[in-house]
């Protein structure tokens, strides 16, 4: 049994890390990404101004165990995005 939505782009359904120019980081299941925005489902955000751990520590924890789905859907404007990679591609710390 394979995927039901092969036409949604290669990151559709994949858990990704979205880095922002302002230092915040999102992890979520990518719905779509284009020149306008990145849309994530079941996402969580790291805000360095509001967290006791740094982004690297947060990413390493997520890499090992997954992320908490705190936000149902988030649309991140593309101009705010500085990086977009699969969570599974984050190197072990």
């Amino acid at each position: 049994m394979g995927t039901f939505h092969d036409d949604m782009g290669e990151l559709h359904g994949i858990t990704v890390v979205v880095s922002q120019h302002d230092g915040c980081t999102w992890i979520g299941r990518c719905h779509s990404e284009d020149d306008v925005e990145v849309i994530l489902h079941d996402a969580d955000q790291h805000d360095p101004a509001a967290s006791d751990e740094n982004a690297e520590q947060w990413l390493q924890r997520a890499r090992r165990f997954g992320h908490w789905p705190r936000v149902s859907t988030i649309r991140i404007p593309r101009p705010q995005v500085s990086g977009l990679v699969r969570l599974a591609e984050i190197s072990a710390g």
Partner: protein
Amino acid sequence: MPYPEELVDPMRRELSDNGVTELKSATEVDDFLSPDGGSAFVIINSVCGCAAGGARPGALLALKSEVTPDRIGTVFAGQDTEATERAREHCSQVPPSSPSMALFQGGEMVWFLPRHMIEGRDPQTIALDIVNAFEEHCAPADA
């Protein structure tokens, strides 16, 4: 909202026809993960083909290895809600995701494979991760 059962049934049977016990209630999950029950492997199945399409064959491939847990079970996320919620309570230290897999010893979770480590990977690679976990946690002490 659950998917139509006729759509889900082949995904259930892909596991249940190969010796994996379906757990459909909280009681069944609790009994399956009883602390005195040895090792247990739980596959949190899901419809999403982005990841589950590789998860099921990967798990089945791993179950052909020399070392396997005492019991193999599955809950179906989004379909068997009560059983899935209870299975996730047994994995409460890690975020919920599906598909995912967890290995238990004496009722305690000792290994977890989250969804993002299944997505986009081929069944053989997924199976290798599972087999490594089986060998680490389920091999006889004198092996």
